[in-house]
C-alpha cells in the first residue's frame, strides 16, 4: 500500500470500518458531497450513500446529540466537528449527556461513539481555527481522549475508538494532516487507547508530547542529537486514559523531563503530566519538570507561529533542565 497522509488515513480507516460494520455511520457539517472541508471523509458519501454519511444542519449540539441517540440504539456513529474550536456549542452534550450516560443509568445505557475534530494551530487560522481544547475533555470523567500524530497511530487508534464501548474524543493534528506520510501494513491491528509510544530512546532528557506538537518535539530532538544530547521522546497519543507507567518509567531512568503541549499553559495537559511526575517520581528528578506550551492568550493570528511551542523554545527548556 502506498504511503499515505494522516488525513487520507482517516478517510480510509473510516471506509474500512464502515465496510466492516454497517452500524458505523458518519455525521457532521459538510461530511457528505463535500467530503469534509479537509477531505477526511472524501469519497465516502458516494460509496455509502446519504443514510450512512449524513450532512447535518450547522449545529454541533445536534451533531453530538444525534450521535448519542444513535449510539444508544446500538449504532456506531462517528461525528465530525469541523474545527475543534467549534466543539463548544456542543460541549454540553459531551459533558451532560455522553460522558455521564453509562454512569447515570447504572450501565443500562451507553454511548459508544467517536467525535472527531481537527485541532491545533500554525495554519494562519486565528483564534477560532487553531485551538487545542483537549484539557476540557480530559477533565470530563466518562470521555476517552486521543490525539495521535502519525498515520499509523491514527489508524490503530481510530479503529479502537470506533470499536470501543465508550465515547471517544478523537483529535486530529490538522497542521500535520498532509505533512507526514507513512506506508501502512495491510493488517487489522488496533492500538489500545491509553498506551503511549516511545518515538526515540535517549539518556539525557525525556521529551513528552502528543498531537500536533510532536513534529516540533521531534525537530528539537534532532537538533539536540546534532549537539550530542540524546533525547527520549514519548508520544502520548492517548490523553485519557494516559500512559503514566511508561512516562514514570522513562522519567525514572533519565531524571530530566520536558513536557510539550500546544494548549495554553495553565491547566494544559502538560500541567497534569508535570504534577503526576512530581507526585510519583520526585526523588528521581534531577531538575524540575519543565513545561513548554502555548501562551495563556487567545490563539493569535499575526503571531501564529510564535505562539507555538516550537523547537527553539523546546531547546531553551531542555538547556535549562540540563544545566540545572
Amino acid at each position, binding site marked *: 500500500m502506498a504511503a499515505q497522509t494522516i488525513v487520507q488515513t482517516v478517510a480510509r480507516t473510516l471506509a474500512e470500518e464502515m465496510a466492516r460494520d454497517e452500524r458505523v455511520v458518519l455525521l457532521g457539517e459538510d461530511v457528505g458531497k463535500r467530503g469534509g472541508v479537509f477531505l477526511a471523509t472524501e469519497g465516502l458519501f458516494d460509496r455509502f450513500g446519504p443514510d450512512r454519511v449524513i450532512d447535518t444542519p450547522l449545529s454541533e449540539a445536534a451533531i453530538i446529540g444525534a450521535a448519542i441517540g444513535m449510539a444508544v440504539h446500538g449504532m456506531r456513529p462517528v461525528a465530525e466537528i469541523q474545527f475543534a474550536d467549534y466543539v463548544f456549542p456542543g460541549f454540553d*452534550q459531551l459533558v451532560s449527556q455522553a460522558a455521564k450516560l453509562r454512569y447515570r443509568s447504572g*450501565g443500562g445505557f451507553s454511548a459508544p461513539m467517536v467525535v472527531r475534530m481537527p485541532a491545533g494551530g500554525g495554519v494562519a487560522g486565528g483564534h477560532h481555527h487553531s485551538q487545542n481544547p483537549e484539557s476540557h475533555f480530559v477533565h470530563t470523567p466518562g470521555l476517552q481522549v486521543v490525539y495521535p500524530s502519525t498515520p499509523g497511530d491514527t489508524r490503530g487508534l481510530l479503529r479502537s475508538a470506533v470499536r470501543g464501548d465508550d465515547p471517544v474524543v478523537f483529535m486530529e493534528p490538522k497542521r500535520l494532516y498532509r505533512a507526514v506520510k507513512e506506508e501502512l501494513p495491510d493488517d487489522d491491528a488496533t492500538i489500545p487507547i491509553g498506551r503511549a509510544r516511545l518515538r526515540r530512546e535517549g539518556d539525557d532528557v525525556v521529551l513528552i508530547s502528543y498531537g500536533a506538537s510532536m513534529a516540533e518535539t521531534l525537530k528539537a530532538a534532532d537538533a539536540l542529537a546534532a549537539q550530542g544530547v540524546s533525547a527520549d521522546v514519548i508520544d502520548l497519543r492517548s490523553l485519557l486514559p494516559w500512559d503514566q507507567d511508561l512516562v514514570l518509567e522513562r522519567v525514572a531512568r533519565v531524571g530530566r523531563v520536558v513536557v510539550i503541549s500546544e494548549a495554553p499553559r495553565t491547566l494544559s495537559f502538560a500541567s497534569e503530566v508535570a504534577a503526576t511526575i512530581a507526585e510519583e517520581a520526585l526523588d528521581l528528578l534531577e531538575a524540575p519538570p519543565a513545561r513548554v506550551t502555548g501562551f495563556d492568550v487567545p490563539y493569535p493570528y499575526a503571531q501564529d507561529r510564535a505562539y507555538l511551542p516550537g523547537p527553539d523554545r523546546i531547546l531553551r527548556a531542555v538547556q535549562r533542565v540540563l544545566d540545572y
Partner: protein
Amino acid sequence: MIGNVRRFEPFGQAPIRVIDDDGRWVAPFACDLDEARLRAIYRDMRRARRFDERLSTLQRQGKVSFVASAAGHEATQVGAAHALDAGRDWTFPYYRDLALALALGWPLAEALAQQMASRIDPARGRQMPAHPGSAALRIFTTASAIASHVPPAVGSAMAQKLAGRGDVTLCSFGDGATSEGDWHAALNLAGAQGAPAVFLCQNNGYAISVAFRHQSGSADVATKAHAYGMPGYRVDGMDPLAAYYVTRQAVEHAREGLGPALIEALVYRYGPHSNADDDGRYRPADEVAAWRRRDPIARYRRYLEGRGLWDDAAEAALAAEVKAEIDDAVRANEAAGRAPLGWMFDDVFADLPPHLRRQRDELAAAHELERDGH
C-alpha cells in the same frame, strides 16, 4: 387505529379537547378504546398521584431527599404513554415524568429505588430522585440538565428511521425547555431529517418562577413548530383522552414516515417546583385553586362513571391495591439499604482504567468498601 385519517388540524386556536371539564365526550368522533384501556388510563393517573403524595411524605421523613411532583400533569403523561407501544417505542422523559414512566410500565418498586438510591436501584443510586429511566423499557435515563435530552432523542428517531421498522421516539419536556438552544437544534434536525419523533411539551405556565410570557417570544409553544416544518398541536393537558388521541395521531404519522410533530399540552403543577421551592413568592393562590378545580382525575372519573365504568367500590379497591403496592415498595427498599460506596467507580467506562483503579484503592483505604460482582 386512526391510520392516515387526520382527526386534528395543527395550529388551531382553541386547545384540543375530547372530554370537557364535566367529563362529557365532546370530540367529533366516537371513542374507539376498549373498557380495559379506559380503566387503565384512570388507574395510571390515580396510582401516580398517590405515589407522588407518598414521595412527599417520604421526603418529609428524610427518606427521600427531593421531590418534583407531577400532580396536575398526570392526564398528559398517562394519555401520551397509552399512545405508545411500550417497550417498542423509545421515550426520552424529563424529571417531572414520573406518571409517564409508571404508565409505560416502570415498576413502582424500581421507581422508588431510584428515589431512595437503594441497593436495588438498577441505575445504582447515581442520581438524585426524580430521574426516571429503564433500559428494559427503552426509557432513556433522565438527566437534570434541561433540554439536554432532546438532541439524543432526535438521534434515537434517526436510528429508528434508518432501521425502518416504524418505531418512534417520544421526547417530553416542560415549557422552559423550549428556550434552550439544544431544544431548537434538535427540533430543527428532526424536521430536516423527517425523523419519527413526537415532541411533547408539558406547558404548566412556569419554569420555576418565570411565567411563560417572560419565557417565550411566541405566545404559545405549538406555534414554534412552524420553525421546523412540522405540525404543532395545542391540547387541553387536563384531558387524558385529548392527550391520548393527539399523541396517537402524531405517533401513527411518524410510524408511517410522515415526520415529526410538536404537541403542547396545557397543564398545571399543583405544588411548588420542588420541595425546595416556595411558589407563594411568584404565583397567586387563586390561580392554583382554579386549576385544581379542573383536576383531570375527577374529571375523567366523571366520564368513566357516565359510561358505567367506574364507581366508589372500584375506587376503594384501587386505593387499597396502590397503598399495598407502595407499602411493599417502601419496605423492600428500606430493607435493601443504600447503594454502597464502592459503586462510585463503576460504569464510568466499560472497563475500569488504571487511574480509577488507583483512586478506588485510595477510597478503599479510607473506608470499608462494599462491592458486588456487577
